[in-house]
């Protein structure tokens, strides 16, 4: 049963991606991109990654759609006809995809008990973290202490992204309001 789910989900993901690339109405493309995120969330929960799935659904389907809509309200909602042929981008995408697939050949299979993470890393965290960190929750110990700098970096990235979005969208919106005010004053 599981391989049926895998194949159907991946086929739907591919179909959605092609649909997004072919749509010219940006409003429709934003909606289909939301569907793509929901499919990605399904796929992540099939892979036993509920935290990634949740982030994907909240950020991809929730926040991103709203941000794209705000951008559309500041610009136009119709994509211009491309002037160049899509041949070069297609080649770049194919080469990148081939490189990524080549990279997965060395990876251990999903849930393999002989994988290095399950042989050395996980047992050490389970055995040592109560003495070393003293936090009863193992996940918290890994996130906040063993990977403390990683988490700090992530927080900095998210803060930067949020500030960037506020400056870009909020700044453009404020300029437009000011232009409206000027027009009204002149009238």
């Amino acid at each position, binding site marked *: 049963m599981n391989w049926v789910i895998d194949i159907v989900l991946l086929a739907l993901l591919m*179909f959605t991606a092609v*649909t997004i690339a072919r749509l010219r109405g940006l409003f429709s493309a934003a909606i289909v991109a*939301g*569907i793509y995120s929901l499919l990605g*969330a*399904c796929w992540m929960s099939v892979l036993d990654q509920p935290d990634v*799935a949740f982030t994907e*659904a909240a950020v991809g389907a929730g926040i991103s759609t709203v941000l794209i809509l*705000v951008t559309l309200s500041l610009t136009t909602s119709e994509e211009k006809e491309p002037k160049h042929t899509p041949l070069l981008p297609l080649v770049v995408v194919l080469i990148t995809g081939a490189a990524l697939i080549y990279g997965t050949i060395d990876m251990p299979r999903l849930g393999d008990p002989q994988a290095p993470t399950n042989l050395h890393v996980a047992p050490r965290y389970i055995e040592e973290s109560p003495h070393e960190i003293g936090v009863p929750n193992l996940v918290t110990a890994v996130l906040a202490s063993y990977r403390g700098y990683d988490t700090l970096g992530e927080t900095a990235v998210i803060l930067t992204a949020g500030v960037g979005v506020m400056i870009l969208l909020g700044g453009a*919106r404020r300029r437009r309001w000011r232009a409206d005010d000027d027009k009204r004053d002149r009238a």
Partner: protein
Amino acid sequence: MFAAAMIAILTTMALALFRAALGPTVFDRVMAMNSFGTSTVLFIAVLGFLNGRPDFLDLALVYALINFIATIAVLKYFKYGDLAETGRRDPSEDTAS
């Protein structure tokens, strides 16, 4: 039993996706996205029971809670053309005109 439910949910997802891809109006696509979100909630719930580990059932509940945000944003954008609109008229516009 759960396998049959899973097949039905995947079929629903595919049908909603085709409606979102074909259109023709924006409202078809909004409707497709909304029903796709509901299918996602059901998918995660049924997947847990299918694999015998319904531990992440609460995740499906939280999905159901955030499912409406994008739909409301799309509909608000469609009605007002701007997400910052409050829906009430600005009283200063009456005096300006």
